[in-house]
């Protein structure tokens, strides 16, 4: 049981870290605002989701796990709204 | 190297960087940024001192930690006042600068 939980933690957190890395590379290498945004939101949402998933077995209490998921949901909400705003601004004033 | 020494040295460099920026950068907003860095350095030193005082089952001495909370809030109020002054200055004179050549020289 613990071995399976540890395996889940390691795989999920590693995968999450990979998405963060990919997102950062995309942010630095992509040519314009919209594509950079694309790279960044994928990394944030998926990467953070995977990290949260990986940490869930290690929380020890249901409340703490619930808080972790809430953190992820709040980040999703904020980042989607903010990306919309950035994208609108970018469309209005092309670089 | 212990954790407290690492962050203590980091804090010392932050204070130095902040002081340098405060003197060298001509723009008030950059000076304010530098002031914030210097302040963070000072706060970090306080946190190091708090951490060194860990005892009685507490991770750090709670007195300096409580002082830090006060100091962070006061520093925010200071930044807000400085920003308000800069914005008003630029509205009034069209520039945000501390050099007296721009103002009406007496």
């Amino acid at each position, binding site marked *: 049981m613990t071995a399976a939980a540890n395996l889940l933690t390691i795989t999920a957190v590693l995968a999450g870290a990979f998405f963060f890395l990919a997102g950062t590379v995309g942010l630095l290498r992509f040519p314009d605002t919209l594509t950079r945004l694309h790279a960044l939101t994928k990394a944030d949402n998926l990467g953070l989701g995977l990290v949260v998933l990986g940490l869930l077995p290690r929380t020890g209490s249901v409340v703490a796990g619930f808080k972790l998921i809430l953190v992820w949901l709040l980040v999703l*909400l*904020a980042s*989607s*709204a903010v990306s*919309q705003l950035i994208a609108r601004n970018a469309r209005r004033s092309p670089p | 190297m212990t*954790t407290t*020494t*690492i*962050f*203590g040295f980091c804090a*010392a460099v*932050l*204070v*130095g*960087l902040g*002081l*340098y920026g405060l*003197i060298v*950068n001509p*723009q008030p*907003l*950059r000076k304010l*940024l530098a002031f*914030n*860095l210097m302040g*963070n350095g000072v706060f*970090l030193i306080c*946190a190091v*001192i*708090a*951490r*060194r*005082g*860990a*005892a*009685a*089952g*507490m*991770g*750090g001495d*709670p*007195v300096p*930690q*409580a002082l*830090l*909370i*006060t100091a*962070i*809030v006061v*520093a*925010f109020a*200071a*930044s*807000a*006042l400085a920003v308000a002054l800069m*914005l*008003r200055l*630029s509205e009034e004179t069209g*520039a945000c*600068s501390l050099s007296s050549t721009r103002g009406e020289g007496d």
Partner: protein
Amino acid sequence: MSIATHISLALLLLGLAFWTIVVRDTFSAVAGFIPYGLLLTSAWLALAAIDVALTEAAIGAGLTGALLIAAASRLHKTEIAARAEQRGTITRILAAILATTMTAAIMACILRLPDRAPTLAPTVARHLAQTGVGNPITAVLLSFRAMDTLLEAIVLLVGLIAIWSLAPDRAWGGRPGQAQTEDPKGPLAYLARVLPPIGIVIAIYIFWVGADHPGGKFQGATILAAMWLLVMMSGLSDAPAIDRGWLRFLLIVGPAAFIAVGFLGVVVAGAFLSYPTGFAKLLIVLIEAALLPSLAVTLALLLAGPPRRPGRRA
């Protein structure tokens, strides 16, 4: 966390700080300052200062970051002129020497701090039960050194009066900031409808657990302030005119209740800000509950700046 993690954290912090000082463009400097503030939060965690980390994330990185970003974009026009007045090489060299000396002196001080560090933690632990709260930092902030917290609330108010005093005469009694022309169906308005109910619950939770766990009124008030600012920015509700009676009442209720409880202590418990036995926790929670709205409104208005446009239709 291991030493290696701490060293890389410290190096990252210094790298961002260096960037903030030397980069040409002010907006980029502020953009470096915000992640720097978030990393600093991890530094507080590494030093076992969880309450400080929460405060830093909320106020040091969050509110200060928002304040500086707004300032950088509004001062953008003035930047080119200001850049022209670069300091000469001699000033730079002298400043560098001064800064290096200072850094070296502080490092020497850090190394020379006594090996058996003095601490008040045992003293706090001994008297914690008398205060009725479980979080030692709350005990320090609201009992042992309650005067500091009272003065801090007053500092924020005096700062607000100072900011208001910068208003143009014609705008006195008016609303701070610019009128918002955000799309009422846009993403910001959507966020401003969905987020505040959640934010308010979280703020009250953080405030409530502050008695016994990390958290408290400052962190809770900052979240409330952020929610209010979000609603104002989205255009769903305008910033209030600064001469409104309810606003003035909310501003002073916290500090006034604090002072009142303080003088109650003189009568009942024999000293200013001392609490009668058995009532300590009740009075502390009472003060915090009164401070929460005051701090939230003060923090939001500090960020909103001086009044700039008429408040009532003439």
